[in-house]
């Protein structure tokens, strides 16, 4: 079962230009940090996928092991972890987030 979860995580990360592992859903976030992160990412208008780590077994344990990052939310852009709530907000303050997201959608490979 664990192996399937890990394969699913890797596949989700690779096949979504923007992916957020969060507590709850964008419509009903279960944590203030997840809510704040989704709101920020949403504000750029790009499509993004989310996975609810509270919805099923495995994600909450396996995602941090794979990423060496202990907390949620976790935001992936173009297959790479860029950070959690504080880092994406700090990147936004520095003006680094918008170009990073734009670049993800300008690159021709990888579907959304």
């Amino acid at each position, binding site marked *: 079962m664990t192996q399937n979860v890990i394969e699913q995580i890797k596949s989700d990360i690779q096949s979504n230009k923007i992916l957020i592992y969060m507590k709850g859903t964008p419509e009903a976030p279960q944590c203030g940090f997840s809510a704040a992160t989704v709101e920020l990412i949403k504000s750029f208008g790009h499509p993004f996928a989310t996975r609810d780590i509270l919805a099923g077994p495995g994600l909450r344990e396996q995602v941090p092991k794979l990423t060496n990052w202990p907390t949620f939310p976790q935001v992936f852009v173009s297959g790479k972890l860029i950070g959690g*709530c*504080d880092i994406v907000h700090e*990147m936004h303050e520095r003006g680094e987030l918008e170009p990073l997201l734009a670049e993800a959608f300008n690159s021709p490979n990888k579907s959304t």
Partner: protein
Amino acid sequence: MEPQEIERLVQETIRDAEVRVSDLTGTGDHFEIVVVSDSFRGKTLIEQHQLVQASVKSALDDGRIHAIQIRTATKEDKAKRQSADDGLRIVGE
């Protein structure tokens, strides 16, 4: 834990680090850790935070620390945005 113990842990891993640790709740287990080091040069923010997390991992794992909030900068960054430390946010799980 005492803030000074955390400063020591960070400096054991990041040798040139200027570290400022604040106890956010007064309970000795929620800390803000501000680290300035040139070892962060060329690293992404997440890599910088991972370095700091690694330095205090033992204390997080055994429960002495419950949550940390990290801010990182290189010495050059620090000079550029001296006022940027003002806006603190609470982050964690």
